[in-house]
């Protein structure tokens, strides 16, 4: 068996001798140096369209020119085909919960969140990928994949160019969609219904 790994190799741990005047000073092992960086974010065309529309309570996606798949948030590209997605589509503020997580930890910068809270992939009606949202207005133990939800928006005078205009997503009370057609299964279910391979 090799030597105790918690003891550094002798060749790397030579004695350090300090000048006499520092002999009684407590050695410094570490220093904390908080840093901050302020920057301007230039969103580019796809995100600009998306973020600007939020100020008017609109959610914009973009459509693949190859097979019509709708991406939200739009990033200007269909990653499957490497195709540019210049065309926006307006989406409703209703959809369903795909995958979700009941989080019991505080997260930095969101002291306003009551714990536990539910972060979920929200699959908007008419969109083919999910985007993140907070689910509230329901006990966390009752949230489920396929549950129908609608957006709860900030008041008009608080709207900005940000996805945070949507405070959270609440249940609509409509029947769930089947788990086999929810979340990332939705695309395959849609393709199967259209008679195309998913």
């Amino acid at each position, binding site marked *: *068996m*090799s030597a*105790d*790994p*918690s003891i*550094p*190799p002798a*060749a*790397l741990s030579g004695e350090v001798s300090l000048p006499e005047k520092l002999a009684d000073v407590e050695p410094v*092992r*570490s220093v904390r140096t908080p*840093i901050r960086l302020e920057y301007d*974010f230039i*969103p580019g065309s796809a*995100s600009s369209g*998306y*973020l600007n529309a939020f100020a008017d309570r609109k959610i914009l996606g973009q459509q693949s020119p190859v097979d019509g*798949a709708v991406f939200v*948030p739009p*990033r200007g590209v*269909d*990653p*499957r085909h490497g195709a540019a997605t210049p065309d926006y589509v307006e989406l409703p503020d209703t959809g369903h919960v*795909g*995958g*979700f*997580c*009941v*989080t*019991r*930890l*505080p*997260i*930095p*910068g*969101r002291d306003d*969140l009551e714990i*536990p*809270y539910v*972060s*979920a*992939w929200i699959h908007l009606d008419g969109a*083919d*990928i*999910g*985007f*993140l*949202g*907070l689910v509230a207005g329901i006990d966390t133990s009752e949230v489920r*994949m396929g549950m129908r939800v609608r957006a709860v928006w900030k008041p008009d005078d608080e709207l900005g160019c*940000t*996805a*945070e205009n*949507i405070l959270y997503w609440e249940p609509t009370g409509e029947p769930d969609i089947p*788990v086999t057609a929810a979340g*990332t299964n939705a*695309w*395959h279910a849609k*393709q199967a219904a259209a008679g195309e391979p*998913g």
Partner: protein
Amino acid sequence: MAERTAVLGVGQTKYQTTRGDVSLPGLVREAAYRALEDAELGWDDIDAVVVGKAPDFFEGVMQPELFLAEALGAVGKPLLRVHTAGSVGGSTAVVAASLVQAGIHRRVLTLGFEKQSESNATWALSLPQPFSVSINAGAGGYFSPIIRQYMARTNAPELIGCMVAFKDRQHALRNQYAHLQQQDLTFDQVVESPMLWEPIRFSETCPSSDGACALVLGDEAAGDAASKPVAWIHGAALRSEANNFPGRDEVNPQASRDCADDVFAQAGITDRRAEIDEVEIYVPFSWYEPMWLESLGFCEIGDGWKLVEEGATHLDGGDLPVNCSGGVLSSNPIGASGMIRFAEAALQVRGMAGDHQVDGARKAFGHAYGGGAQYYAMWIVGSDKPTS
């Protein structure tokens, strides 16, 4: 035909919450020194250095490979940095191996590291992005919905994740480098530990560790000249995919399946479970053990949890021991975690894994994944030189 390539030496630091006694250069030097010592080589024998670590904002030191060049003996030599998020330790080893396989260098030092005590990874993974809302609490928040999908698909018993976590913590007691050494931990304590990212419990989660892992790789002549056993590389592969696209299978991503098919084909392996003697897979959250066993083709889809339940993945009595080192669940210096999987696979086939050695291991599998389960790195190492 690629140059045959061997792992000549492995060096690790002890993994622990805080290595307050060393700086970043001191930490990486320690692992590199031990790898050279194991390989019975000196700094001058190394032709190039390949370094990997997780994103720079984890420690707030940008391009740390530049200021670590001296500590790694890389001054005046080619120095390459690899970035692939949490899989980086594995990708870095594959890139380093490719430099030898391509005949560009004869001996390469490769190293992965993280000093999580000088950072806050959950914060670093929860950076606000202008086009998204800020509600994802680190990696657990991201992977929890995927684990929930796996549980729904397979109807696996609820405590499978706890079984994996308990097994890996038991394995860690037999690895003197492992961070978590929970002698008195019971299975009930794992089950009763608090939910953090439901369905992920505290005890089903990896720790935050400081540490570094290094490998010395050599060409066929260097492998033949070594006086200690070496680990021959039988296959090495990388794949990636986008993290959000219509119909993406997040539980069993195509990039994972493609990478596995490639690496097993390179190694000429047809019966994966029978021909591999030890598996080191990247399991930061317990449920990823059964999920990856399925994706990697060690069993049928939907059967991964059964291997866990049967004890097939336990070092004592299992036919497919998984993470005998204790795995990522017991030590997680993120940038090194993938390379530790590759290194442990090499130690197993060299017969040098100490108390967590699988008797007679001849072929072992090393694996890493990262990002939103987007980046994959895998290798297969063997005691014998590959025939083709």
